[in-house]
């Protein structure tokens, strides 16, 4: 389990580097899909299967929308992948920064630090995270109302921003 977690964490950092190194938006969206998938694996390894499922569904839908926007609004005749020199330079720079951080913190890490904690110790019917999320409907009702109101407000904002030509932005 420790090696699986190590691989997932390395994949997460590499995915964020592939987003941050300024490739074309197609490839950046692909890198973000990689980060979301690997983050799902990290959450699964820590026992949060419901949060992992929600994250996977939300980010898959979001990245689908972003791919559509790439094809519609930000299309380039010659898209830049990570092999271009400008992109490769920033990839190497960010990798150097991460390696510096790893070597700075390397002394404090030990073998057991990779092993994730288990789920709840006692035997229980519902998993810890889905039980916690279900709490949103009883005690956290106020926050649920607030987020529903924020989503409605965002719908009105989006409609107003994209209403007509020569408006907005």
């Amino acid at each position: 389990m420790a090696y699986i977690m190590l691989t997932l964490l390395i994949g997460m950092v590499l995915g964020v580097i592939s987003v941050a190194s300024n490739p074309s938006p197609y490839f950046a969206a692909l890198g973000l899909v990689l980060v979301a998938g690997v983050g799902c694996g990290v959450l699964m390894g820590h026992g949060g299967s419901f949060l992992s499922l929600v994250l996977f569904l939300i980010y898959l839908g979001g990245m689908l929308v972003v791919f559509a926007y790439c094809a519609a609004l930000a299309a380039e005749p010659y898209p830049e992948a990570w092999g271009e020199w400008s992109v490769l330079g920033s990839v190497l720079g960010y990798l150097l920064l991460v390696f510096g951080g790893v070597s700075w913190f390397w002394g404090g890490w030990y073998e057991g630090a990779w092993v994730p904690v288990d789920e709840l110790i006692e035997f229980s019917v519902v998993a810890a995270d889905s039980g916690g999320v279900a709490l949103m409907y009883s005690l956290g009702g106020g926050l649920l109302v607030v987020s529903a109101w924020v989503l409605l407000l965002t719908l009105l904002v989006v409609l107003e921003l994209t209403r007509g030509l020569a408006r907005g932005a």
Partner: protein
Amino acid sequence: MTPTHFTISSAFLLGLMGLAFHRTHLLSALLCLEAMMLALFIALSLWSLQLDATGYSTAPMLMLAFSACEASAGLALLVATARTHGTDHLQNLNLLQC
């Protein structure tokens, strides 16, 4: 600082640096914001999972809802920019001083 903490912090900081330095498209900047929100989501989830704080696992869900609001507002701004200025290059927005 455990390796998991280091990974999440470096993911957030790398997303922030990618947003701050050289962006070509507005869509790339939005993707960097998404990467930062993803790192925050995983950090909040791992906090509640590692501490066995069951009731706290609503917080990443609510943050994901707010992150969806942010992403949709950003994409609407992208559409409005592409309609009024023809392109979504940030250099173009700098040149037009908008």
